[in-house]
């Protein structure tokens, strides 16, 4: 009881110190000693230093540890001096807080490994539980939930009592429950309450916590076991939803890759084996855009993809028009020869990119709005996948609208349905051909922008999508954009429901075999055009 009081008192002091942010000069030499350990470049010393600094109650503790986490803490191994580079670029001495001109030349950033990173997180969690920034408090509560450091209980409880923001309060309650569950001298009833709180959380981390409890009183163990099974069955249900989402996401990638092909192959009947290379060119356009932005206008990085989309469309579209004018137009009505010529073309384009950009992968970064994930119920939805899905549907809708409502769209449909008639009505068929092919290629280029966010940007990028794209278009039914849409999502979802059962490889084989069998049943795909026209 007495110890508890002291703990609370200490926590109170700590919180006052942190809240007021008073730059009290540290008088205690133990703090200096502790900080100096950072300069030893030994993980064990660094670990000790973190513990001691965190426990010191010194106002500089939090800045030091967060600097350590971000790699802004440097140490001079000779003088054993440690420096904090603040986020605004100013440099201070870690032990005194006094401003310093520059870090000595032989100082190096204090190194961390994963174990230390966890220690830092836990320490920082303890230190920022009472931070005025709600986001930091939430993060702190979550890191305490994971680390369940017993000595943080009083701080957590204090924070819990004061917290007014509901989700954070909930997080504090969960953090407290986690600590209590691991506290050997907590009462059974406290522990049972804690189990209930954790069970209510119901996610994989709750599951991890409950399954990792170790020895517990029988009553608690029983409650934990039942909580585990209930969470597991709940999660199993969610995993179905998750598979469906993954399927949609994979379907959107397939659709994106195939949609340009649905134009060049589906509408024009040109078997364009260089389609994948158009996708690749789009991805490389993104790379170039990002490179320019990185070196010239770093602040615009988040807009890089928005800039890349029209550029990729233009680049790939232009090359598409060029290809149509120089190669494809001589091969109309000879689909299989087009296949061979475009295959040759794909080799040339690949090697050209390999020569220009090198054979290795190129880095295309995710803008901040495409990084990370959010939780929806018990499934994780990553932003990049979500955006790609939205983007794909948007491209699809725009394309559909374009074909239906614009003059070019009308001309395209006229030319593909009856070339001679269209020509005699004054449509410049060769111009329409070039533009249609350019449109299909341009859309492939756009697809490249999106795919650069989830896949390699290398000369081989296109190869990995070409077969899948053809499967999607053929499965959906040539000449039918809606067929391509349904085909892509069907294949995506089927793949993702097969994968957990059969594994990735067998799942893919099964899909291929199913497509082969399906084509026997419906030789012209899911949404085949009927009637005499198709025979022509």
């Amino acid at each position, binding site marked *: 009881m007495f110890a508890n009081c002291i703990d609370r008192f200490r926590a109170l002091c700590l919180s006052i110190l942190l809240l007021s942010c008073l730059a009290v000069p540290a008088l205690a030499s133990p703090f200096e000693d502790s900080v100096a350990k950072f300069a030893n470049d030994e993980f064990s010393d660094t670990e000790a230093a973190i513990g001691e600094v965190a426990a010191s109650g010194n106002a500089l503790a939090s800045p030091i540890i967060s600097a350590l986490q971000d790699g802004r803490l440097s140490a001079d191994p000779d003088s054993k001096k440690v420096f904090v580079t603040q986020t605004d670029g100013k440099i201070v001495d870690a032990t005194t807080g006094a401003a310093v001109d520059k870090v000595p030349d032989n100082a190096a950033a204090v190194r961390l490994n994963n174990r230390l990173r966890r220690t830092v997180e836990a320490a920082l969690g303890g230190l920022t539980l009472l931070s005025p920034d709600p986001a930091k408090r939430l993060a702190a509560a979550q890191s305490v939930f994971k680390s369940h450091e017993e000595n943080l209980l009083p701080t957590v409880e204090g924070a819990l009592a004061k917290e007014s923001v509901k989700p954070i309060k909930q997080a504090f309650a969960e953090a407290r429950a986690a600590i209590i569950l691991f506290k050997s001298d907590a009462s059974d009833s406290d522990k049972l309450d804690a189990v209930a709180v954790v069970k209510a959380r119901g996610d994989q981390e709750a599951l991890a916590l409950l399954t990792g409890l170790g020895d517990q009183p029988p009553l608690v163990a029983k409650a934990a076991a039942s909580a585990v099974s209930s969470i597991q069955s709940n999660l199993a249900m969610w995993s179905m939803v998750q598979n469906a989402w993954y399927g949609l996401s994979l379907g959107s990638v397939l659709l994106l890759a195939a949609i340009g092909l649905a134009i060049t192959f589906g509408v024009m009947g040109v078997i364009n084996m260089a389609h994948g290379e158009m996708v690749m060119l789009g991805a490389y356009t993104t790379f170039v855009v990002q490179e320019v932005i990185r070196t010239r206008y770093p602040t615009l990085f988040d807009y890089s993809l928005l800039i890349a989309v029209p550029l990729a469309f233009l680049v790939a579209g232009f090359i598409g028009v060029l290809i149509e004018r120089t190669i494809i137009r001589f091969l109309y009505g000879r689909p299989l020869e087009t296949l061979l010529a475009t295959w040759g073309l794909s080799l040339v384009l690949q090697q050209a990119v390999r020569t220009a950009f090198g054979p290795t992968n190129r880095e295309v970064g995710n803008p901040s709005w495409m990084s990370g994930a959010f939780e929806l119920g018990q499934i994780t939805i990553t932003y990049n996948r979500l955006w790609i899905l939205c983007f794909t549907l948007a491209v699809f809708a725009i394309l559909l609208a374009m074909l239906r409502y614009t003059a070019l769209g009308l001309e395209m449909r006229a030319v593909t349905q009856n070339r001679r008639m269209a020509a005699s009505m004054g449509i410049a068929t060769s111009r329409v051909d070039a533009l249609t092919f350019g449109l299909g290629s341009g859309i492939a280029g756009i697809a490249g922008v999106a795919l650069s966010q989830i896949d390699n940007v290398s000369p081989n990028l296109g190869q990995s999508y070409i077969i899948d794209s053809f499967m999607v278009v053929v499965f959906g039914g040539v000449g039918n954009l809606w067929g391509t849409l349904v085909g892509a999502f069907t294949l995506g979802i089927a793949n993702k429901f097969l994968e957990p059962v059969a594994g990735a490889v067998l799942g893919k084989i099964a899909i291929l075999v199913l497509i082969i069998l399906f084509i026997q049943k419906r030789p012209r795909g899911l949404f085949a*055009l*009927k*009637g*005499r026209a198709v025979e022509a």
Partner: protein
Amino acid sequence: MNVMDTRATSAMLYLDGVHVSFDGFHAINNLSLTLAPGEMRAIIGPNGAGKTTMMDIITGKTKPDEGTVLFDGTVDLTRLDETRIAELGIGRKFQKPTVFESQTVQDNLLLALNVDHSVRGTLFWRGSKAESERIDKVLETIRLTDARNRLAGSLSHGQKQWLEIGMLLAQDPKVLLVDEPVAGMTDVETHLTAELLKEINKNHTIMVVEHDMTFVRELGVKVTCLHEGTVLAEGSIDQVSSNERVVEVYLGR
């Protein structure tokens, strides 16, 4: 046995209540038609009247949604595929002349001969005198004897039409379906074709689809006018061409 059944069993071709639609478009609508053995029938009708689709149905290329299609009174054609129907003895000439362009005239006829059509049969085939005599005869009939070694693709349009008719002869079917045999022909050729068809009709049942009214008149046979997938009028050429509805939808003005 009622009247209908007698008609059915005695007919060479018997279509009754046939419907077919493509994506909601009714190409054939309650079509009923009977072709007696040895008859030659001319089919006329505007574009989209369903003439070619009707031939597709008879030859097994298109399956009707409902209705009866009988051959020789007993054989249900809707259950058979093109090959089987051709084997039964229904030959067809296409609207657009379809010959094997990269093969010689002679080979085109050879392929059409109604001899063993199995893989084995053709692999170990060796020509017989009877066969070459028949080919010679057909070549003479279609006036292509001099062109026998030319590639079919190098023939003129009219010659291709004739070659295709020649292939029908070589096939020696019971029923010939002839789709627009004189399209693109000169007047002389048209006349000769009419003569030729009449000659063929001596041994075969024929159904001719044609737009050329002069030609149809020259044939001098019973005429059926189709419109929107159904029979509009039937009778002699004079009867049909004086029919008000026919004039309205087809002959016009």
